[in-house]
């Protein structure tokens, strides 16, 4: 077991894990932050996306040791005292949620896109979200949510 110190959703945490523990396992099984979902475990579906120092990464391909001293944001870190942030509100309003299994990843990618100050076209937004799969096909309404957030045309 090795100790790892990192920041999760603004809170400094120390965990003790086996060296081969992934960030996804650390979040779900050690910290019980189950909002981050596993869709494949091999970096192909994007379901487990979290923000690492503000940038989207697939947490199944990172070892917990890789995030020592860094800042991880999961979907649980977005709403403040139960109040949704603007990206979450846009997803709810646009009907961008179906089974919801990919939703945390979709929301986090849009958080990063928005934080970058981009005013993406529909194509650019799709490119940014291209790594997150959704079998329900929530894609059109996810793009509607992005458009609503960035003032773009739906």
């Amino acid at each position, binding site marked *: 077991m090795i100790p790892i110190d990192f920041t999760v959703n603004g809170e400094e945490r120390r965990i003790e894990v086996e060296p081969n523990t992934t960030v996804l396992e650390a979040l779900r*099984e050690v910290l019980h*932050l*189950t*909002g*981050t*979902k*596993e*869709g*494949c*475990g*091999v970096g*192909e*579906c994007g*379901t487990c996306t979290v923000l690492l120092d503000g940038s989207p990464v697939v947490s199944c391909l990172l070892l917990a040791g890789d995030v020592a001293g860094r800042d991880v944001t*999961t*979907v*649980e870190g*977005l*709403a403040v005292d139960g109040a*949704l942030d603007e990206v*979450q509100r846009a*997803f*709810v*309003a646009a*009907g961008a*949620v*179906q*089974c*919801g*299994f*990919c*939703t*945390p990843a979709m*929301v986090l990618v849009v958080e990063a896109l928005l934080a970058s100050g981009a005013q993406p076209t529909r194509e650019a937004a*799709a*490119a940014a*979200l*291209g*790594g*997150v*799969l*959704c*079998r*329900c*096909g*929530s*894609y*059109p*309404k*996810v*793009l509607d949510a992005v458009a609503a957030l960035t003032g773009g045309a739906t």
Partner: protein
Amino acid sequence: MTVGERIPRVDAVEKVTGAAVYGSDVALAGMLHGAVLRSPHPHARIVSIDVSRARRAPGVAAVVTGRDFPFTFGSAVKDQPFLAIDRVRYVGEPVVAVAADTERRAQEALDLIDVEYEALPAVFDLRDALADGAPLVHPDLHTYERGSHQIVPHSNVNTLYHFERGDLAAGFAAADLVVEEEYTAQALSHAALETHASVAVWNPIRGDYTLWVSTDRPFHLRDELAGALGVPSTKVRLVVGYVGGSFGGKNTLVSEAVAVALARHAGGRPVRVGFSREEDLTTSQLRVPAILRLKTGATSDGILLAQSADILWGSGAYTSNTVGVAVRGAQSVVGPYRTPNVAITSRQVYTNTPVTGSYRGYGVTQVTWACESQMDEIARRLGIDPLEVRLRNAYEEGDPFLNGQIMRGVNVRESLERAAEQIGWGSVERPPAPHLRRGKGIAALIKPTATPTSSNCVIEVQEDGEVVVSCSAPEIGSGQATVLAQMAADTIGVSLDRVTIVPTDTASSPYNGPVASSRTTFHVGNAIRLAGGEVRAEILRVAAGKLGADPDLLDLRDGTVYEGSQARISLAELLGGPAFSGRSVIGSARYSSAGSPLLKAEPGLEWMSSIFWMVGAHAAEVEVDLETGVVRVVAVAAAHDVGRAINPVTCEQQIEGGVVMGLSNALFEQLHSDEGRIGNGSFTDYKIATIQDTPRIVPIIVESEHPEAPFGAKGIGEPAAAATPPAIANALCDALGIRIRDLPLAAERVLEALLAARDEENGSAPGGGEPP
């Protein structure tokens, strides 16, 4: 009122915050983790299994083989063992299960198991499976416990179905044009983002099982498990939270079979079994592949006179729930058209390949592919607009189905016309570059719902005015919690935010048929209407007593009792009262479609009736690259007759999602296998549509009247994916003049067809085109 409004989904906030708990999230104290050793052979006898080293491995708590848990299941044919017993029948079949304190240790213990196999002759191809002398996947099929459907003993045919009406020969004889072609629909993975996962615990004192699962049919699974284990259904309890996508894939025993077998041998500790993505894509029930030979006769005006369909389906190594696909699904092969003379033959065979089963549409995606490709071929051969041919034959309100049932609420015409209009039917788009070609295509569909089925509902208005609805309809993603809550709120007279649809627990929730077949809004909605009406009436009686008013003059709106326009008392005031003296108002009801006068049909054929019919039409525009064969879908306009939209947002979600899935099925998805071994069990190699593949989608909600529908609503989830693939293929044909009858329309297949067409044009032998 909320019905008909664009209400945000009631589950959306939980899902955007990560608070929603799915079956795969369940973790219990003392929980063990399971792993499965799978067969490397498509067909083999198990000579011996040595698990002694695995049992001694660190952290291992249970190792179970088929001999340790010798049960079989199967709702149509009881042919499938929980773990292979003496024989394996497909690559990937579970042989030994291990439970350990961590998933890693369970996986590592698998390497310590020695299984000796003796290979047996195997059969993979559907036609080979029919041949005389083919290896039999189940030599004892005729001895198995099964339903009333027909089989062919001592063969691989596990389902045989034939239907005929009218005079087929006379119909073909009178036709000016007869088209006969063969179409194929491939096996597909459901590929829900949540893989199969379940937690099972066996209580050694009570001898019962509790499972936390992601499924769309809790009661069916309960009964299937109880039946397999030979215990009363009260000995099996299923608890269902949010389901991370199902699409027909989570409705039989998949991870559950392994979890139950392990739990029985884990001394009372819970066991979680979560499948990897590879296990999920390759061994967790696929869409039934089909070869469909279709022959249609029409007049020179394009009026259909006769159609025969000969369909060969593949169940894989076990029957699972494919029988309904081969029987009920096959009936939709006629499409939403009045064809007077029809013959349908369905045969379904076992092969030594992974198990198949229901997939969104329950056979309708496969038959619609054939029917709608052929409709286009007829139109083109006759020189009639493909839209016009369809309109000339489309079912109208009150037309009889094949069995004579008078159909209500079948707005095929408006679906076709509005889809065509939204795609700009008839106008030719200029391709943006010389190596590109554009084309447009259209396709329609018809689908029944499972009939007869029943739903029960218990509604409790609690002493604080909160409304709790228990109706056993898990939220699988398609929005049922939202539309059911809307119907409950409006029926009772409370605001939507006071209504909670509680999760399903078979120990305490009322019986419901499956969340499948697009039946939930209609059936559970009807039960809610009835139970909601009961509690509303009771509340008004209680209020009348308390207020000394005439109950007939009282109204309940937004959780407040009104007398005329005057607010008299809130629900909390009415039902609350002093400490320890609150009152609940409880209502319950059952809705069953059995016995409905709407099902009346020709004698003996009532079973083919559907309590409502779903129809729709998709129109697609595609762009094809002549150099690469790559097909890009530019736009899809998709119109569906939903009866009435309880919530246009959730209807649009189903339509848009259906188009994305249909597009993905049509262009990308194929499981590549060699001797029964699937080689592409990952999302890199089994591509599904991404957000970047998503075209412009125009969802169109068509409405119609149905006399028995709650608030007028029918269903929408299942049919939404079926018409997209043929619409794309028809658009491809419009662009290139080339008809492709096999799915998927992958770039290499399109390019091959383009090169063959060029060879033919140049008069050279096929394949002699480009120099090496």
